[in-house]
């Protein structure tokens, strides 16, 4: 079947009333998660994953994916109205978003960010539609050596992006690998690190760790930063402005910005470890350097808001490519999505789209619909989200702890897993505080067992020789791409950092 036919089949599935209902619920929840400062898509996905356990896989995956890309839309509302990014990927949106709001243009800024997010997200999905089958085709020749190298590539690129604290990133990843070795060894049946506990025979389950690290850990860190003491007094009153809708000039002057950064954001999103934050900072920096109105950047330039918004949404779509076609997540959020797939017995990879066409194409089609829904929600439900911004952290905090706890317990009705989640929350707080990387830990926890299995199979095939990694052309290609990324990514990171520094310096 051709791509168009597959897409139509997916659309017919996605458009059913029950799937649409879950899709809208996911988009709405994603926006709420994005609005809460400190909580990104990974936290939202981890906390809400248990809620989807009672559902069928198709609506559940659609809903989780909608939470994932919906968070990108929501995070910008606080960037514009409160100068507080909802998550790291919307930091660049504060640079011009908040000055626009201060200049009495909050309404046009909110509408333009929604439009830019829609364009970035939709172009991203179009590119997924075209490229995902091609990626899957290429990766069909992959065997255990290539899968091991892909897992290594995913980890290395993430660690390289950590920058200054890379050693702590390596330690975080190794902790994740270590946790991934707990349980019965599948080849020999021998218990590893179970210490006689029946609960640990099946290994350390991913969900309590992810909920603890991203849910509780982030919450404790937000309290440490004093977010519960800050009010919302600085919120810009957009409803008193003369004009809510953008001008014709706003649309015309930013149309090429949207086109440029949709492509750039998507490419950065496909690279494991780079993600939406780097994409948005890069887009801001690039737009600023090529703009005729350089001097206006940082003072309320519409292109300065549109560029990062388009890029971060395109990047979140791009990150779905390695997840769906290789089964390798490139970020913490896509690692949680992978865990959701595995939970339903689905294994993303080269054969995923062929073996599960309804789910794969239903998911892709739902992303078109989800972006349309989010465009409408993020314009017309702004008053609702403004009310949510006003809910103080000191009330949100205890409520989030309740949801995390009961959500974790509901998975396997296990108190051990619930206590593990609390432990991961406390450890996650210290990791965040001292520069470790909870994202690297979670990614390693997911990739660790896959990497170990692939490595052992590889060395069995090669009779213990590591030379197999340079004997196969596919392996050599992956090694070359990994080396290229290890050289390129620090430069991209520096590029983003420069944009932030320039913004802080007001130049």
């Amino acid at each position: 079947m051709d791509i168009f036919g597959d897409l139509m089949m997916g659309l017919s599935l996605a458009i059913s009333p029950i799937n649409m209902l879950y899709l809208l619920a996911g988009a709405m929840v994603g926006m709420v998660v994005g609005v809460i400062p400190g909580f990104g898509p990974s936290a939202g996905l981890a906390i809400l994953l248990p809620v989807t356990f009672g559902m069928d896989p198709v609506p559940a995956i659609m809903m989780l994916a909608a939470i994932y890309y919906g968070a990108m839309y929501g995070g910008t509302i606080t960037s514009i109205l409160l100068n507080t990014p909802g998550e790291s990927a919307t930091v660049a949106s504060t640079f011009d978003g908040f000055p626009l709001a201060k200049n009495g243009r909050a309404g046009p800024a909110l509408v333009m960010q929604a439009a830019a997010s829609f364009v970035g997200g939709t172009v991203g999905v179009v590119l997924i539609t075209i490229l995902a089958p091609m990626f899957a085709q290429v990766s069909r020749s992959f065997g255990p050596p290539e899968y091991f190298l892909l897992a290594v590539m995913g980890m290395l690129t993430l660690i390289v992006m950590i920058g200054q604290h890379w050693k702590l990133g390596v330690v975080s990843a190794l902790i994740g690998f270590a946790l991934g070795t707990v349980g019965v060894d599948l080849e020999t049946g021998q218990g590893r690190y179970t210490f006689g506990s029946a609960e640990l025979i099946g290994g350390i389950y991913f969900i309590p760790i992810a909920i603890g690290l991203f849910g509780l850990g982030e919450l404790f860190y937000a309290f440490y930063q004093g977010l519960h003491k800050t009010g919302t007094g600085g919120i810009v009153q957009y409803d008193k402005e003369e004009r809510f809708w953008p001008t014709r000039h706003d649309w015309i002057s930013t149309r090429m910005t949207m086109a440029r950064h949709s492509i750039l954001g998507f490419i950065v999103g496909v690279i494991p470890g780079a993600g939406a934050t780097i994409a948005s900072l890069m887009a801001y920096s690039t737009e600023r350097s090529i703009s005729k109105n350089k001097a206006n950047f940082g003072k309320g330039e519409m292109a300065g808001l549109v560029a990062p918004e388009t890029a971060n949404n395109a990047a979140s779509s791009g990150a779905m490519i390695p997840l769906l076609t290789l089964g390798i997540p490139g970020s913490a959020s896509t690692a949680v999505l992978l865990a959701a797939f595995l939970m339903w017995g689905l294994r993303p990879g080269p054969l995923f789209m062929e073996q599960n066409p309804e789910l794969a194409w239903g998911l892709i089609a739902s992303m078109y619909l989800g972006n349309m829904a989010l465009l409408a929600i993020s314009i017309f439900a702004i008053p609702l989200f403004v009310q949510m911004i006003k809910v103080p952290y000191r009330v949100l905090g205890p409520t989030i702890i309740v949801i995390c706890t009961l959500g974790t317990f509901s998975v396997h009705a296990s108190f051990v897993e619930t206590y593990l989640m609390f432990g991961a929350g406390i450890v996650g707080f210290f990791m965040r505080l001292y520069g470790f990387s909870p994202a690297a830990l979670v990614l390693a926890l997911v990739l660790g067992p896959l990497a170990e299995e692939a490595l052992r199979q590889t060395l069995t095939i090669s009779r213990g020789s590591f030379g197999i990694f340079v004997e196969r052309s596919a392996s050599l290609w992956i090694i070359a791409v990994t080396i290229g990324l290890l050289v390129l990514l620090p430069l991209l990171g520096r590029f983003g950092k420069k944009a932030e520094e320039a913004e802080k310096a007001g130049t």
Partner: protein
Amino acid sequence: MRIAFLIVVLAGAVFYSYIAFIDLNFLTRTGRLGPGFFPRIVGVAMVVFTFWALVDALRERRAAQDDGSAWRDVVTLMALAVGYAVLLRLLGGFPATVVYLGLSLVIVNPGRHLQNAILTAVIPTAIYLLFDRLLNANMPPALLDLPF
């Protein structure tokens, strides 16, 4: 505190490696890679990198600049969370959530008695309806025999 945290991680890494070398075989009887192969690589790497990070942290050692009040708030929240875990085991899902939320809101959101009372009633009820009735999910059972 950072150094203390790194020492704890290092101790864990040493313990992990010890088990990997003592309990887990590198090769199986048939000569294939055994259950200890991967843990030994991970364990040794973890010890090396944690030690390296610890040396760096000792070199960069600066006077503690921690804000006492920030620690007080976060430790309070952690203690409340741990208390909630204990309450869940004893009282079960719904009663423990009511007690925990009531107490937490009094401590972290002081002086707003009416708001706290409403939230203490509404949030556990909404969560109970969502998990138990709508999603048919597991709620923690009580260890103690409660009359309700």
